[in-house]
C-alpha cells in the first residue's frame, strides 16, 4: 500500500497531538498507509496515540536545528523522510508554517502543492483536494499531477476517527541533511503569546467577532463568546485601532474561518472582512446601521445597539440553560 506522510510538529508541545493531527491521520489512513514524520521527540505515549490512528511507521528527528531555524529545516525533514518511504502524498496542517513547509517540500520533491484544502478524497488512485478560492466565491477540485502530492489541510476537513485496530508503529530516528541555506534564518527569540483560554479561531464551531462599532470595548463580544463557548474574532478596523490582538483578525489579510455560526457585531462587512467569513454556515449580524453591507449576507440581522442587544442575549441564553 502506498505511504501517506503526515507531518507532526512536536517541537513546541511534545507529547500532545493537536486535534488537526488526528484529522490528517484519519485522511491518510483512508488514502493509504499512514506514516508519521515527527519533528521532535517520540515517547511511548505519542507512539501509542499515533498507533491508535493506524500509523505503522514513525520517522523522527530531534536535531536542534529543527527548532533553531525558521521553517526550512522542517521542510528538509519532511522531504527527506517522504523520499525515504517513497510517499505518494504528504499531508500537513494549514497554518503559516504548515503551508510553507508544504511549499518547500514541493520544490525538494518536485511535487505539486495544494494549500487550504477543506477535504481530500481518493479518486482513481489520486488524491483530489477541494478548496475555496477567490475569497470563498468558488470551490475547486484540484490534484497534483506529479508522482507525489503535497497538501496542506484546514481544520475539520474530516471527523477524526481512530483505526478499527490499533497498530504498534516502528519508530525510526533519522538524521536530516540540512541544506546550507536552510540554516540561514535563525530564531533568536521566541515569546509565547498570552493564551485567551477560548477556542482557536480556525478550530471554533462558533465565532463572535467585533468591529468598529464596539468602540474600544470588546466586553459584550467576549461575554457572548464565552456563553456560547466561541472564539473571539475582529475586523481589521478593530485590530488596527489596537482594541484587540492582530491574531484575532478575520478577513482577507487575517484568518479565514468557516464556523457553524459567525456572529458579526458592529462590523460593516466590507469586502476585506467578508473574504474571511462568508463561507460560514450561519451568519448573524448586529449593527446599528441598517445600510451595512453585512446585512446582505446575514441569515439573521438585528439593527440595533450592540451594547443593549448582546447583554440581553447573554442573559436570555443563561436563563434558558437555567
Amino acid at each position, binding site marked *: 500500500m502506498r505511504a501517506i506522510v503526515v507531518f507532526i510538529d512536536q517541537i*513546541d508541545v511534545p507529547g500532545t497531538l493537536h486535534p488537526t493531527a488526528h484529522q490528517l491521520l484519519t485522511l491518510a489512513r483512508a488514502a493509504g498507509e499512514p506514516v508519521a514524520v515527527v519533528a521532535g521527540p517520540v515517547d511511548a505515549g505519542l507512539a501509542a496515540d499515533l498507533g491508535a490512528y493506524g500509523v505503522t511507521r514513525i520517522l523522527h528527528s530531534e536535531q536542534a536545528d529543527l527548532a533553531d531555524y*525558521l*521553517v*526550512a529545516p522542517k521542510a528538509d525533514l519532511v522531504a527527506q523522510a517522504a523520499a525515504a518511504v517513497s510517499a505518494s502524498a504528504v499531508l500537513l496542517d494549514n*497554518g*503559516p*508554517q504548515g*503551508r*510553507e513547509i508544504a*511549499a*518547500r517540500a*514541493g520544490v525538494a520533491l*518536485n*511535487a505539486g*502543492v495544494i*494549500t487550504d484544502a477543506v477535504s481530500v478524497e481518493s479518486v482513481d488512485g489520486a488524491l*483530489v483536494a477541494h478548496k475555496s*478560492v*477567490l*475569497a470563498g466565491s*468558488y*470551490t*475547486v*477540485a*484540484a*490534484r497534483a*499531477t506529479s508522482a507525489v502530492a503535497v497538501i496542506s489541510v484546514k481544520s475539520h476537513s474530516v471527523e477524526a476517527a481512530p483505526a478499527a485496530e490499533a497498530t504498534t508503529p516502528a519508530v525510526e530516528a533519522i538524521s536530516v541533511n540540512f541544506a546550507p*541555506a536552510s540554516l*540561514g*534564518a535563525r*530564531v*533568536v527569540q521566541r*515569546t509565547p*503569546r498570552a493564551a485567551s483560554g477560548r477556542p482557536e479561531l480556525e478550530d471554533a464551531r462558533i465565532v463572535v467577532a467585533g468591529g468598529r462599532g464596539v468602540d474600544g470595548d470588546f466586553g459584550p463580544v467576549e461575554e457572548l463568546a464565552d456563553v*456560547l463557548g466561541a472564539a473571539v474574532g475582529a475586523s481589521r478596523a478593530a485590530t488596527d485601532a489596537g482594541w484587540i490582538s492582530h491574531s484575532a483578525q478575520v478577513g*482577507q*489579510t487575517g484568518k479565514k474561518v468557516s464556523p457553524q*455560526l459567525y456572529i458579526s457585531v458592529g462590523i460593516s462587512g466590507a*469586502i476585506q472582512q467578508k473574504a474571511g467569513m*462568508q463561507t460560514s454556515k450561519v*451568519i*448573524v449580524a*448586529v449593527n446599528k446601521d441598517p445600510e451595512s453591507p453585512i*446585512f446582505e*449576507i*446575514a*441569515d*439573521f*440581522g*438585528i*439593527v*440595533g*445597539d450592540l451594547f443593549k*442587544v448582546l447583554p*440581553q*442575549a*447573554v*442573559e*436570555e441564553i443563561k436563563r*434558558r440553560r437555567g
Partner: protein
Amino acid sequence: MTQRTVVENSALNIVVLVKYVPDTQFDRHLTGDSHRIDRNESILSELDEYALEAALALTDARGGAKAGNKVTALTLGPAAAAAAVKKSLQIGATDGVHVSDEALAGSDASATSLALAAAIKTLGPVDLVITGMASTDGETSIIPAQLSARLGLPQLTFASSLEVDGSTVTARRDGDDFTEEIQATLPVLVSVTDQANEPRYPNFKGIIAAKKKKVATLSLAELGLPADAVGPAGSLTRVDAAAERPARTAGTIITDSGEAGVALADFLAAQKLI
C-alpha cells in the same frame, strides 16, 4: 545565489515582487476550461504595496537612488501586468522588469516560482528579495517559500517588522502561539505582512519621474527556460473542476425595539446552535 560582501550600510540591490491581480473590490471569476482567473479589472496587489514600502524605507535610509540603491519591481504575467510595474515605478521603484511569455499562461505556483527564480538570477547579485505575505488572488503564500528554496536564500517570511543593520537582517514574525525574532545575514528573502508599514502613495513628482523609467521585458528564452518548463506542461497541479458558490442572500432582518437579544436567542435555539 552569488554571495557578495555588503560593507556597513552600503547601497542595496532589492527586488520586489509585484503581482497584477483582479481588484478585490469587484466580483472575481474563474474562466475557461482550465478554470483560470479572469484578469480584467486588475490592479497592483494591495499586499505588494507593503513589500514595496519595505524596500523603499530601507533604501531611503541609505540615501535612496542617488546613493546607488536599487529597487526593482518584478512582475510575471500577461501584457497588461506591466501596469503593476508602472504603478510601482510611480510609487518609487527605480527599475521595472516584466517577465512576459505566452507559454507562462496557466502556470501553477511551482512553475511560477521556477520562472521568477530564473528572472531574479538575471538581475545580478541581489541583497533582498521582498514579497507581500500572499497574493490577493491565489492567497496561498507558496511563492515566497519556494523562491527561498530555489534561490538558496534564508527565508524570513510573514515579517511584521523588518530591520537591516549593516548586513544583518532582523524580522519579527507574529504567530498564534509565539512571536519570533528571526535573524539572518544578507542576501535574504523576506515576505512582509500588512502590519509591517504604512505604504506610501505615488505623488506628482513620482508620477512624472516614472514616465522616464523603462520596464524591461524578459522572455522565457532570455531566462534560459524551455516553454514546457512552465504553463500547464510545467505545472505540477491541475484544477479538475470549479463551481461558483451560490451568492448568500439576506435572511430575516429585524430592528431592535427592546427585545432583539431575546429574538437572537430564539434564532440560535431554532437553528439548534444553543
